[in-house]
């Protein structure tokens, strides 16, 4: 296992190939952000019967570039009460995990470069999925410290919301990801992709539930609508990046869209079979990359579709959905899948296992409902006592 590139020891050629791969991934992410901003603005304006950007370049393709250049030439303001060091550090804490997470995403098959076989993937560590989860957790720090270091009330409120939201949905997302890990029996992203070959995509192998939970939790993790309470303009001005301007703001903006791309790429890897697709004899190395990009694009479209369709959640609705619905459901589904797998390995009757699982689920659901109702009653009585 692991990348065959390192099998014959490490020499200058290997280092060069790795450097080239780093460059390619970096360039791909930058371009994908430029594209994603344009794509989102175009699609959402289509859905709102508007035209969208069409001035800069053909179909307005260069609009993001123009906006970026504008941002870079603006004054970088530092609020009076800001914590100078952390204020400048925060955008980087936000963008580095966004970049790093993409390193473990396989975006193509195995190719030969100058006599060396290598995966089209920056790194294939045996703990790839853990790395992904770690990166998405670290991304919270950027947001949190940005709000804290700004020395201003709206950024602080925005960052408190962000931390709470990201921590809450992290659990549901991890459980959904764990289901995919369970199916492949490995934490390596490439193994997960290989396990899905032949259209045994986790999307339907695991039942659609983990995919849907991942989709919702990932939307919340990236602070995209309908979970964009972090930067709810009507309530918090700009949210955690209110006080940021110029390059620092550009980095946050970049990180946000890069997170969207990365999270979509991870979803494609974990649930949609990554670069798997119909094999075509002509240019065999190219097609996996095309399938990967196609799936990625479809996923990004779904994100934009969400934004065009769904209104923003209220804060308590967000927390209710995360804690009372998604986490119990994800946990139950993981246990059900685990039970089915154990049953298959032990040679038990699948129907009996399924029936038992559903029965346990019904009991658990009833117990959870009772507990929640009890909690509400207690809360109401406490509220009455207070008034």
């Amino acid at each position, binding site marked *: 296992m692991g990348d065959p590139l390192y099998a014959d020891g490490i020499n200058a050629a290997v280092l060069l190939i790795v450097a080239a791969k780093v460059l390619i991934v970096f360039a791909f992410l930058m371009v994908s952000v430029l594209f994603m901003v344009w794509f989102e603005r175009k699609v959402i304006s289509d859905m709102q*019967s508007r035209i969208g950007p069409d001035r800069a370049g053909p179909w307005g393709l260069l609009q993001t570039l123009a906006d970026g250049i504008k941002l870079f030439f603006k004054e970088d303001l530092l609020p009076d009460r800001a914590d100078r060091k952390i204020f400048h550090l925060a955008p980087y804490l936000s963008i580095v995990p966004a970049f790093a997470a993409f390193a473990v995403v396989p975006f193509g098959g195995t190719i030969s470069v100058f006599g060396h076989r290598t995966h089209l993937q920056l790194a294939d560590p045996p703990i790839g999925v853990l790395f992904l989860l770690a990166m998405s957790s670290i991304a919270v720090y950027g947001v949190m410290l940005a709000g804290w270091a700004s020395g201003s009330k709206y950024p602080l409120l925005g960052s408190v919301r962000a931390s709470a939201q990201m921590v809450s949905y992290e659990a549901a997302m991890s459980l959904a990801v764990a289901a995919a890990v369970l199916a492949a029996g490995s934490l390596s992203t490439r193994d997960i992709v290989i396990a899905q070959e032949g259209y045994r995509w986790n999307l339907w192998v695991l039942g659609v539930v983990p995919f849907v939970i991942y989709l919702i939790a990932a939307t919340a993790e990236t602070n995209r609508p309908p979970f964009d309470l972090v930067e709810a303009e009507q309530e918090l001005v700009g949210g955690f990046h209110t006080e940021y301007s110029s390059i620092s703001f550009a980095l946050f903006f970049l990180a946000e869209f890069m997170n969207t791309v990365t999270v979509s790429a991870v979803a494609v890897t974990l649930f949609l079979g990554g670069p798997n697709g119909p094999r075509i004899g002509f240019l065999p190395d190219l097609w996996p990359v095309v399938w990967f990009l196609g799936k990625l694009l479809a996923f990004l479209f779904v994100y934009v579709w969400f934004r065009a369709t769904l209104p923003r959640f209220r804060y308590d609705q967000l927390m209710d959905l995360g804690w009372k619905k998604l986490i119990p459901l994800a946990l139950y589904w993981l246990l059900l899948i685990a039970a089915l797998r154990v049953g298959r390995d032990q040679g038990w009757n699948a129907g009996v296992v399924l029936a038992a699982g559903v029965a346990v689920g019904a009991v658990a659901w009833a117990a959870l409902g009772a507990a929640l109702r009890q909690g509400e009653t207690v809360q109401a009585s406490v509220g009455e006592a207070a008034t």
Partner: protein
Amino acid sequence: MGYLDGFRITLKQMWGDRVTNVYPDDKRPKPDRFHGRHVLNRYEDGMEKCIGCELCAGVCPARCIYVRGADNPPDEPVSPGERYGFVYEINYLRCIHCDLCVEACPTEAITESKLFEFSFTDRQDAIYTKAELVVGDDGHPQKLPWEDWRPGDEQHTSAWVRATAPSGSAAYEGRIGWSGELGFGVRAAEKGQTAESDRASTPEPAPKRGRR
């Protein structure tokens, strides 16, 4: 599945019509009686209509018009009659385009075109002088280099505004209510004008507009 209906609607919109007007390239047609930049009209023989009476300046609620009359030079008269508008200035930073100057003018000298998008870099530029307001030798408004004229903007500069004046009332039906004008000649009387009392029963047929 009420939750998913919204997704269908947004997706359907992708192939629908766009409501956006690509503004500077493509402007919406303006109403016939639009109030825009003024013009100072001339008679068919080229004489100016303005007689320097200052009624427009007097009626202007924004006080944006400055007029000074002077006696016509006997050998080379500017307007038929005794006096002419010697100075005529309109400050477009103050003008509210209420059209009261047009109503007040006894000789139909001042009327409004449909050009309304002004853009100045200097307060002095906002003051249009007589040299800029007077119509050209073809009877049409001068298309000044900094102005963005579109087809139709100079049409009906005077004919339509007159319909709200006394000569536009039912008592004047069939009579020509305005004088000959350079470039336009004597206009035909407006059709279909009814008295205020029977307007409710027989509504005026709406003029056809060039809608896209």
